[in-house]
C-alpha cells in the first residue's frame, strides 16, 4: 500500500516538473459552460480582453481571504486598468444556495469586475483549483502564464507586478 502512495507521489512530482518545463508554451483555457452573474449562459472559451492581460480569480461568498483580495484590488483597479489594460474576471464557485446573491454582493461592494458563476465547480475542476482564492494571469493570447493561491495584505503588489510584465510582453520569472 505504501509503495503505491510512493509511486503516485513520484509520478505527480515528475509530472509537475515536466509540465512546468512544458508549460512555457502556454496552456489555453478549457471550454466550460458557465453563467454570467446576470444569469446568461457563457462559455469560458469566450474569455478575452482584446490582446491585453486577464486576471482570473476564483472566489466564493464564504471565503474571507477571497473577499479581502477582491476588495483590496477594487481600490486599485482603476489605476491598474489605466496602466496595463488588464481585466479581472471573478469566478464565483458558490453553488445554487448562494449564486443568486453573488451579483447583488458584487454590486453592493462596488466592484467593477466581470463576474462568472461556476455553480457546480466544472471550471474549478478543469483549472485544477484545489483551494481558493486561486488567481491566474492570462496573456493577451489567452495563455495561462502565472497562477497563485491564497491571499494576504500586499499580495496584490506581486499580482500587478506580474500583470505589468505580461502587458509589456516580458516573461515572469520569480522565486
Amino acid at each position, binding site marked *: *500500500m505504501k509503495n*503505491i*502512495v510512493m509511486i*503516485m507521489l513520484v509520478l*505527480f512530482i515528475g*509530472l*509537475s516538473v515536466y*509540465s*512546468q518545463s*512544458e*508549460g512555457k508554451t502556454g*496552456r*489555453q483555457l*478549457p471550454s466550460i*459552460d458557465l453563467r454570467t452573474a*446576470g*444569469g*446568461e*449562459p457563457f462559455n469560458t472559451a469566450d474569455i478575452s480582453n482584446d490582446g491585453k492581460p486577464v486576471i482570473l480569480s476564483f472566489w*466564493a461568498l*464564504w471565503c*474571507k481571504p477571497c473577499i479581502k483580495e477582491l*476588495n483590496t484590488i477594487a*481600490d486599485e483597479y482603476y489605476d491598474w486598468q489605466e496602466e496595463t489594460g488588464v481585466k479581472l474576471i471573478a469566478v464565483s464557485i*458558490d*453553488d*445554487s*444556495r*448562494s449564486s*443568486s*446573491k453573488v*451579483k*447583488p*454582493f*458584487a*454590486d*453592493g*461592494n*462596488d466592484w467593477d469586475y466581470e463576474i462568472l458563476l461556476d*455553480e*457546480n*465547480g*466544472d471550471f474549478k*475542476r*478543469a483549472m*485544477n*483549483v*484545489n*483551494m481558493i482564492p*486561486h488567481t491566474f494571469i492570462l496573456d493577451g493570447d489567452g495563455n495561462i502564464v502565472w*497562477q*497563485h*493561491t*491564497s491571499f*494576504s*495584505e*500586499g*499580495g496584490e*503588489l*506581486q499580482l500587478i507586478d506580474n500583470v505589468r510584465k505580461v502587458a509589456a510582453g516580458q516573461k515572469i520569472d520569480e522565486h
Partner: protein
Amino acid sequence: MKNLLPVLIVLFTISISGLQAQSFVDLGKVSGSFEFDGQFYGTDEALGITDSTLDGNKFRFNGFGNIIYTNGNFRAGFRYEAYLPPIAGYNSQYEGHGIPYYFAEYQFKNVQITIGNFYEQFGNGLVLRSYEEWTLGIDNSIRGARVKFQPYKGIAIKGLIGTQRYYWEPYYNGNRGIVRGLDAEFYLNEMFNGMAETKTKIIIGGSFVSNYEDVADKTLIQDSTIYKYKLPNNVAAYAGRMRLIHGGFQFNGEYAYKINNPSAMNNYIYKEGESLLASFAYSTKGFGISVSGKRIDNMSYKSKSTEIGEALDINYMPPLTNPQKYSLATIYPYATQPNGELGIQGKLNYTIPRRSKIGGKYGTKIELNYSNIFNIDKQPVAEGIPVDSTGTLGYQSDFFAIGSPKYFESFDFIVSRKFSQKFKMLVSYVSQVYNIDVIEGHTGEPMVYTNIVIADLTYKFTPIKSLRFEYQQLFTKQDRGDWVMALLEFNIAPKWFFTVFDEYNYGNPEADMRLHYYSAGMAYVQNTTRIALSYGRQREGLLCVGGVCRAVPAANGLTLTVSSSF
C-alpha cells in the same frame, strides 16, 4: 458499465489515431493538482482522548492527485484518492485507495460526449446534482455516459445515464440504482431573432430524472402482524424552471416534483415529494439586495432506498442561510432538512460612497442578512394514524402554512471600513436561533439562542507585512454556554503566514469542560504550492462548506497539508 476502463482506452486510441503521434505529444497539455492532508493525533485527557480511543491510529491521511490531459477537442483525466486511514470525521467507508474518477471527453462541433465519471447539475439541482467537496468527503459523481447537444442557437440539451459513487464499493445490480436524466434549456432571446434586442431576457428549462433500483418488498412487523410493502423500482422526478433578467433585476424560480419514494430517509411513507425555490435580486453599483424563498416537502432523493448517510444523493436542496466566515458563528450552522422545511432569506449589501461624510476616504461597506426557517405543516392522513407512519401517505400538508417546530433563524450585521493605507476594520453582530434537537439530533435539548460579536482588525507595517487581530465572543445560556476567541495572524505577502489562536469555552455549564482550544500554525506559499502546518486542539463541531456540513470530532495533534496544482 462495470469495465469502463477498456472503453476509455479504446476511445482514447481512436481519438489519437486521427492525429499524428508527434502532434499528440506536441499539442497535448498535461495539467493536474494534488493535496495531502495528514494528521498526527495525540492523547488529551480533558477531551477524553486516550491511547485506547486512538486505537493505534495515531496517523491519519487523506490525499488525492488529479491529472488532466487536453488535446484540442479531446480531454481525459483521472483522480487517485487515498485515505490511509481517513482523517477523523470522514466516513470510515472511505478507507482504502484507488481511482474513483476517470473520464474521456470529446467535443465534436455542437455535441459533447463524456464517458466515465462526470459531475452534472440540472437547473438549481433540485432533481439532479452530482458534485464533489473534498473538505467534506462528499463525492456523488456519476459513472456512465453523458451527452450535451446544442441543436440550435439558444438551446442546450443534456442526457445522461450511470451509477453514483458509493465510497469504494463497485456497482453491481441491486446495490444501488441506475440514474437516468434529461435536461433542456431554452434561451429565448438567442432563439428568436425578434427577441434579440429585447431588454428582458428569458431562459426556461425543464428536467426529467429517473432512478431504477431493483428493490425487494419491505416487511414490517407491528403488533405481531406482518405487513408487506411493495416499493417502486422506478422513481421519477421532474422540474421546470425560469429565469428572468431585466437590467439590474433578476428572477430565478424552479419547481420540482418527485413521485412516491418510500425510503429509509422518510420512514417509508408513500407521499409524493415537491420543492419550490424562488429568488429575486436587484442591484446597481454600490447597492444590492436579494430575497429568496424555499419550500421542501419530502424531497430526499437517493439512488439507494436504504441509504441514510450523506452518500448517493441524486438531488441537492440549497439551504437558505448565510454562510458564516468567522469561527464562533459556525458553531451552530444550519443544514437542510430534506423531509420538509419552509424558509426565507434576505440579504442586503451597500457601500457608503468614498469621500462622503459617513463613508470616509475609502468608503464603508455594510451587509445585512436575515434567514428564518420552519418545518412545513404536517397533519395526519387519517384519525389515529401518526404523522410519518411507515406504509401510509405520511401526512397532509397545507402548501403555505408554517409548521412547527422552528428550525433556524439568524440575523447578521457587518460593517467594514478602510481607515487609511495602513488600517482596516470589520465589526459584526450575529444573532441565531438554532434547533439543536432537529439539526444535530440532540433529542429533547432546548432551542439555542446566541448573540455573537466579532471584530477583525488589520494593520500594515510595510506594504507586504501585516498583522491581523480577530476577537469574537459568543453568548448563550444553552448547550455549551459562552465562548470567547482571539486570533493573531502575521503575514509576509505573498509567501508566509503565521497564526495563533485560542477558543475558550469559559461558559460551559460543566466546570471541567471549560477548555481552551488553542492552535498555532504556519503556511508557506510558492505560486500554487501551499504547505501548512498547525498544532493544537480541534473543537468538536460541524465543518461546513457551501451549506453542507461534516461532523468533526474533538482532537489534539499536528496537521500537515500540502496542496499544489500545475
